[in-house]
C-alpha cells in the first residue's frame, strides 16, 4: 500500500515529546520503507526548535506556526489537517487526551478508518491494516483490522512502542500560511493545574505505591509505617485518590504524575496500563498482590503473592531491625 504517512508530534516547552520517536517506530514497523512526514503545530519562536529536533528523525517536517495554535485545540487542528492532508493519508497520533479529542472526528472528516489506542501491529495486507487492541479494561486482547483504502487515522497507546533512533536529516517545510484564519466553535480558556499537594513524588527515588488491594482506609497506616522504615515516599494508583484517601498529588498514572524512581514497591496494585503509564525509566519494581494473575507481575522484576495485612507489618519490623 503506497501511501503517505503523517505523524502529529506532541511537544511542550520547545521540546518534542518522547511520543515522537515512538510514532516514528510505529510508522516504520507498520509501513516499512515509508517516508513519514512529521506535523508540528504551535506558535512562537520555540516552535522552530521543535521542528529542527524532529527533523533529525523524520525525513520531512511540516511546520504550522500560528498564534491560534499556541495551545493544542483539537477543534482547530481537525479542520486544518482536513484541509492540508492528501486523500488516503495515514495519520498517526499518540492516544493522549489530545489524540482522543482529535482522532475520531478527524477520521470522519477525512473519510478514513479509525483505529484507536493500538498496542501492537501485525502488519499490512493489501489495504487491510492489522493491529492489536485491548478491550474490557485490558482483560482481553483483540486482533483488529481496518480497511485503509480511503485512509486511516491510527492512535497508539503511549509507551506501546519503543522510541526509534533518530537518524534522519529531514527538511522543514513552513506551512504556516495554510493555518491562517482558523476559527472554531470551541475556544480554549486556560489550564488549571492539579494541586501540588504536600510532596512532589516525581522527584523521589524510592516509592511505596498503594492500590485498591489495601482494602480499607485505616490500613494505609501499615503502608505509612513501611515507607517510614524504608525512608521512602508513599504514592498510589487512581482508585485511592478517587476515594479521597490520598490527594491527587500522590497519584501515579497517565491521569496523574509521571515518576522515575529507582525502586518502586507496588502494593495491592493490579498493574493496569493507566497506572504503569506513569512509571518511566527502568525502576526495580517489586509487586505484592493477592491475585497471582495480576498484570503487575508482568511488569515487575520481583513478585510476591501475599496478603498485605500479613506481609506489611512483618516487612516493616524486619526492615527496622536491619537498619
Amino acid at each position, binding site marked *: 500500500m503506497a501511501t503517505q504517512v503523517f505523524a502529529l508530534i506532541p511537544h511542550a516547552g520547545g521540546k518534542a515529546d518522547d511520543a515522537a520517536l515512538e510514532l516514528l517506530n510505529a510508522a516504520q514497523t507498520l509501513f516499512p520503507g515509508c517516508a513519514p512526514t512529521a506535523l508540528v503545530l504551535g506558535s512562537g519562536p520555540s516552535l522552530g526548535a521543535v521542528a529542527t529536533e524532529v527533523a533529525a528523525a523524520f525525513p520531512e517536517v511540516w511546520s504550522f506556526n500560528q498564534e491560534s495554535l499556541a495551545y493544542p485545540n483539537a477543534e482547530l487542528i481537525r479542520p486544518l489537517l482536513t484541509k492540508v492532508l492528501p486523500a488516503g493519508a495515514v495519520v498517526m497520533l499518540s492516544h493522549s487526551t489530545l489524540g482522543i479529542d482529535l482522532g475520531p472526528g478527524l477520521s470522519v472528516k477525512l473519510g478514513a478508518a479509525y483505529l484507536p489506542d493500538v498496542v501492537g501491529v501485525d502488519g499490512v495486507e493489501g489495504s487491510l491494516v492489522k493491529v492489536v487492541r485491548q478491550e474490557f479494561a485490558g482483560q482481553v486482547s483483540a486482533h483488529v483490522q481496518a480497511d485503509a483504502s480511503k485512509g486511516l487515522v491510527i492512535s497508539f497507546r503511549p509507551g506501546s512502542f519503543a522510541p526509534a533512533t533518530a537518524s534522519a536529516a529531514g527538511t522543514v517545510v513552513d506551512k504556516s500560511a495554510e493555518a491562517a484564519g482558523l476559527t472554531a466553535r470551541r475556544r480554549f480558556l486556560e489550564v488549571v493545574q492539579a494541586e501540588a499537594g504536600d510532596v512532589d513524588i516525581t522527584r523521589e527515588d524510592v516509592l511505596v505505591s498503594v492500590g485498591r488491594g489495601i482494602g480499607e*482506609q485505616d490500613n494505609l497506616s*501499615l503502608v505509612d509505617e513501611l515507607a517510614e522504615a524504608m525512608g521512602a515516599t508513599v504514592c498510589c494508583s487512581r482508585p485511592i485518590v478517587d476515594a479521597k484517601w490520598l490527594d491527587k498529588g500522590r497519584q501515579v498514572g497517565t491521569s496523574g504524575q509521571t515518576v522515575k524512581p529507582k525502586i518502586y514497591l507496588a502494593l495491592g496494585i493490579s498493574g493496569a496500563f493507566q497506572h504503569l503509564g506513569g512509571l518511566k525509566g527502568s525502576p526495580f519494581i517489586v509487586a505484592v498482590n493477592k491475585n497471582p494473575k495480576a498484570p503487575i507481575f508482568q511488569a515487575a522484576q520481583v513478585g510476591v503473592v501475599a496478603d498485605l*495485612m500479613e506481609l506489611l*507489618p512483618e516487612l516493616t519490623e524486619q526492615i527496622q531491625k536491619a537498619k
Partner: protein
Amino acid sequence: MHALPFSPATASLAGVPARLLFLLIPLVGAACFAWMMVRRMAPLMKAAPDARFDNIGERTILVLKVWLAQWRHPRYMLAGVLHIVLFLGFLVLGLRSFQLIFLGFMEHFTLPGFGGELGVVYNIAKDYAATAVFLSVVVLAYRRGVVRPARYAVPKELGKDHTGEAILVLGLIGTLLLSESAFEGSLLAAGTHGTATPYTLAWGFQHLFSGLSIPALGRINVASYAIHDLTFFYFLCLLPMGKHFHVITSLFNVYFMRLKPGHVKPVKYGVDDKGLDELTSFGVKKIEDFTWKHQLDFYSCADCGRCSDNCPANRVKRPLSPRFISIKGRDHLYQRYPVFGTDKTEAEPLIGGIYSEDEIWSCTTCGACEEECPIGIEYIDKIVDLRRGMVDEGMVPQSLQKPLSALEKRGNPWGKLEKKRADWAAGVGEGFEVKLAEKGDEAETLYFVDSMTSYDDRMQKIAQATARILTKADVDFLALGKEEKDSGHEVRRYGEEMLFQSLKEQNTEAILETGAKRIVTSDPHAYNALKNDYAGLPPVEHVSEVIAAGVEKGKLKFSPLADPSKTYTYHDPCYLGRHNGMYDAPRVAIDAIPGLKRVEMAGACKDRSFCCGGGGLGLFYEPEEEQRMGVLRVNMAKEAGANVIITACPFCLTNMEDAIKVAGLEGQMEAIDLCELVDGQLQH
C-alpha cells in the same frame, strides 16, 4: 374530725377569700395543661400508623417491670437508685398533691378510702417519701452541677448545655417538697393536728416553727400552700415543654414499647409486602412520616444520655449520638407544632435539616441504645426508616452503591460469581462430604452459609469448620450452593427494602424447595434475618445452639486444648446476644472444652457487649471516625486479661482480626471463631 386552727380554704388575703384564688389556680393550671396536652397530641394524630395495641398481657407486664419496678435503672447504679427513690416518691406523693389541690377550697378533704387506718399509714409513708426524695434531689443537683457526668454533656454544635433545665426542675421539685412539708409542719406546730413522723422534713419544720403564734403559723400555712399550689401547676405546665414530659409519657411509652428485638418495622404498618409497590413514598423524609410511637419517643426522652454512652458509633466519634436523634426530633416537633401558635404546614426534610446523612449512615444497628433506655425509646426502626427515605431519594453514599448493585446482580456484595458460592465446600477435608442443593442432594437440615462466609477467603474456614462439626455431630445437612443469595439482612437495615424483598423471595423459594425441616447457620446476621425478617421457613438455629444441645445431651466429646496457657474471652455478637437473647449456648459450647480458661469482659459482655464495627453493608461504608470500634473492643479483651477473643460471627471475626493489626497487638492477641475452636477439639 378536729377543727383546724387555720386552713387555706378559710384564709383570706387582703379581705378576699383565699379559696377563690386556690380555686382559680387549679382551674387555670389544669386548663392550660389540658390545652398543652391537646397541642402536643396534634402531630401524633397526623403521624403514620403503628401497631401497638396487641399483646395487652405482655405489655402490662412490661409496664410493671420497666416502668413501675424501674428494671433498667440500676444499670447505672447511683443515678438509677436515686431515680428509683425519686420516682417511687413521686408516686406516693402524687396522692398527697391531689389532696392538697382540694384543700385549697375545701377545708376538710381526704381521698376516698383514706379516712381511716390507710390514711394514717399513708401519712407516715408520704412524709418519709418526701424526705427521701428531698435528699435525692440534693444529691442529684450536686451531680448535675458539680460532678457533671460526661454523658450529660452537650457538644458545642448542638446548642446550650442542658444543666440549667435540670437544675430548674430539681429546684421545682425541692420547692414542692419543702412547701408541702412546711404546710404540714406549720399545722403540726399548732399542736392540734397530730404528731409528726419522726426524722422527716415535716418533723423538721414542726420543730422549726414550734413556739410561733397561731396566727403566724396560719400565715406560714397559707403561704406554703400558695407556693405549693403555684409551683405544682407551674411544674405541671412545664412538663410538656422539655425533658420532663417523660413524667407523663413514660407510662405510655413503656406500654407501647418494642416487644420483639431483632425485628425491623414494615415500611408502613397496614401495608403488606405485596402492597409496597403502591406506596408513593418510602421511608421517613419529614418528621410527619414517623409513626406516632416514634414521635412519642421523641417526647419521652429524658435526656439521660445512657443510650449515647453505650453507642459504639458515638464512642468512636462518628457523627451519631442517639440521644440527640431524640432531642433534635423533639425540638423539631415543638417548633413545628408549638403549644401557643400555629402549626407549620410546609414540609421540612429531616436529612440536611436536623439530621445529616453521615449521622444516619453511621449506625451499625447493634441495639445497645434500645437495650439501655429506661423509657423504652427505639432507635433502630427510626434509623432504618430514615435510610429508606434516603434510598428513595437516591441519596446513597457511593461506597454503598457498588455493593448494592452487586447484590442485585450477583446476590453478594462483592459481585463474585454465583457458581463460586459453594467453592468452600471443596476444602472441608478428607472424609468430609458436603451435600449441595445445586447437585440435587437432599437432607433434613439446611446449612445457610450467607455471603461473607461463602466468599471471603478467611471466613470460608468457618464454613468448613461448621461442616465438620455438623458431620461429627451426626447432623444430616446440605448447603444451597449457587441458589443461595445474600440473606439481605443489612440490605434491609440500610434502607433498600425492595432489594431485600427480592432476595427474601429468592431465598425462601430455594430453601423450601430443598424440603429441609430445619435451618442451621453460623452467621448471626443470617440467623436474625431467617428467624425474624423472613416468614414461612422451618425453624432456624445458630450452630452454637446445636453444639450446646449436643454438649448437654452428652453426645459430643472434646479433647483437651493443646495449649492451656492462653486465656480466652467470648465476644457476644450483637445479633446473637442483644437481638436474640442467645448468651448461654455459645458459653456452654466453649466451656465444654477441657482445660480452657475463660474470662468475661466485665461490664461489657452479654447485653452490654460492645459492637465490633458492624457487618454486611457496614463493611463497605466509609465512616468518619476517630478510631475503629474493633480496636476499642480488642483493648477491652486485653484489659480483661485475655489473649484470645472468641467470636461467633464472621463479621466480628474480620473486624477483630483487622483491629488486632491496626492496634499493633499482633503476637499479644488473636481472634478465633467459635466453630474453629470447637472443631479443633471435637472428637469424631
